[in-house]
């Protein structure tokens, strides 16, 4: 089992570049430990900025720095950076078009036991609604590193959400196909499939598990790792829908305004098929560690497979 959380992959990728590129900055709001950014702060104190517990300031300061030519990466729990500093993300980053990368750590229900204040089940909806803001939810540490490598090359705003805990590897060092803003498809898009499962972030692993379970039952499934929630890889969404009888989306998010909503819009417009959106409830999420909470709501391999079987019948 992998022990490296995605946040650590971000830190390592940034550290690998920060030595050469003195414009790369990490900004934290008393969150360097939670963000796994302590090694960066220790190795590059001149490229690190601590703003204290002040997420609005975190994002505005980053915007000011970016405007003056720096490349700031802001780290704060996803629940805070996405909504506490929402207006700063909207006005100072997206609207002013500053090269700020917002990294939401411990996203979704990573802090399962800590209650709704610490859950970020609204971040995809909130960030996606801002023009000029991109939204990414990488699925494992290898994809996370590839994503950060790519983000280091551009000068546009982006929001990245990662979870707190290590997730099982999907890819490997030598085998992590990655194209910016293109979903990674697992399975055969050209074949006639029964179900197309589109997942993002930590839900990609259970989606793949569901495909395996369905395969054993003779049900053909194709899975898309839709790490690029915005801009959504619409082309792959339509191809997925065309290849199957049913589309299922799975995400660690509230049922409204998330990746599933965006997928449903594309499918409805271009290739009408039944779309089942699997997500967290529109309610207080039950208390517990994230794995147990996912199981409770059927956001696991078996739950997704069951949903497919029910809706194919």
């Amino acid at each position, binding site marked *: 089992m992998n022990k490296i959380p995605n946040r650590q992959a971000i830190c390592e990728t940034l550290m690998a570049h920060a030595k050469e590129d003195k414009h790369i900055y990490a900004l934290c709001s008393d969150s360097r430990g939670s963000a796994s950014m302590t090694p960066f702060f220790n190795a590059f104190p001149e490229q690190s900025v601590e703003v204290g517990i002040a997420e609005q300031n975190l994002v505005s300061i980053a915007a000011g720095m970016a*405007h*003056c030519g720096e490349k700031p990466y802001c780290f704060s729990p996803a629940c805070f950076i996405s909504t506490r500093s929402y207006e700063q993300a909207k*006005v100072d980053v997206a609207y002013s078009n*500053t090269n700020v990368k917002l990294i939401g750590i411990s996203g979704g229900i990573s802090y399962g036991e800590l209650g709704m204040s610490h859950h970020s089940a609204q971040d995809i909806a909130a960030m996606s609604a801002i023009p000029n803001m991109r939204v990414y939810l990488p699925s494992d540490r290898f994809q996370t590193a590839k994503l950060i490598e790519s983000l280091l090359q551009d000068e546009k705003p982006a929001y990245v959400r990662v979870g707190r805990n290590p997730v099982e590897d999907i890819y490997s060092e030598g085998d992590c196909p990655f194209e910016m803003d293109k979903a990674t498809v697992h399975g055969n898009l050209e074949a006639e499939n029964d179900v197309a499962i589109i997942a993002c972030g930590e839900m990609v692993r259970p989606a793949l598990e569901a495909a395996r379970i369905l395969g054993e039952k003779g049900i053909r499934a194709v899975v898309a790792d839709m790490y690029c929630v915005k801009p959504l890889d619409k082309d792959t969404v339509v191809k997925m829908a065309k290849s199957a009888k049913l589309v299922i989306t799975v995400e660690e998010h509230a049922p409204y305004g998330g990746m599933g909503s965006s997928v449903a819009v594309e499918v409805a417009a271009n290739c009408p098929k039944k779309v089942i959106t699997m997500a967290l409830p529109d309610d207080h999420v039950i208390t517990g560690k994230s794995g147990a909470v996912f199981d409770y709501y059927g956001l696991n391999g078996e739950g997704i497979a069951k949903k497919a079987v029910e809706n194919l019948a």
Partner: protein
Amino acid sequence: MFLRAQCMEKPDAETETDMEVKMSKPEFDVKALTIKSLELRKVVLDMIMKSGGGHIGGDFSVMDALVTLYFDQMNVSPENMDDPDRDYFIMSKGHSVESYYAVLAAKGFFETEKVVNEFSQFGSKFIGHPNNELPGIEMNSGSLGHGLPVSVGMALACRKENRPSRIYTIMGDGEVAEGSVWEGFMAAGHYQLSNLCAVVDRNRLQISGTTEQVMTHENLHAQIESFGWNVTEANGNDIAEMREAFEQAKTVTDRPTCIIANTVKGYGGGEIMENKAAWHHHVPTQEEYKEIVKALEAKKEGILHE
């Protein structure tokens, strides 16, 4: 460009060395700048009359601070607007955009006539709040409480890059009620950003009444000082005083400076609009327009014949 030559004019008999020095900085002529400031208020008035909207009260109170910055203090112009070593300004009280546009136009960033005709019109680039797709505007603003924290980021970056740049921002006094402003004050004090200078346009009025009724700022000076700032006060409608305050700020090397610019809302527009909360975003009638023009002219005449 509108009145530009007037300010740039220099006396004839000067040595070459003097000339060189003054090439980098125009001679300070308080009278000329004060007149410019009054004439730019007329541009603002025309902009608002033409578009049927705007925030005239704050426009008039803040104009002298803007004129002092752009025509005396700041190293920024259409020629060096992409130079990283320039000075940076954020109009945090973005609703006073009409004044900002008038000053930027006078500075040559765009044409005065164009902004007067197009301000807030359908499809216009001259939106009712600052937008950095226009030349000369660094950051978008409009929602209050953003300018200071963004300025902190600029000041940090410029210090890290060893740039000579100074960072300026102007806030409204009502705006200081925003919590994010205090996050900015706190961080700037913590990082001892002496290259940062914030101005509070202390006109004592906001949309619902006096600032003291709405949310008191009686202790503003001491409050900001307690965040590790050098705080000074000046008559914000007196260009000589504002200049002195900006110059004093440059001598402070271990703290950021905040200038509390005591102003009159609607300054220069005469009795009809001065110090009246209702004029926060009032659009003058034709009769009122004439009154204001008359008041501005009278003030200008007074200065010319001082």
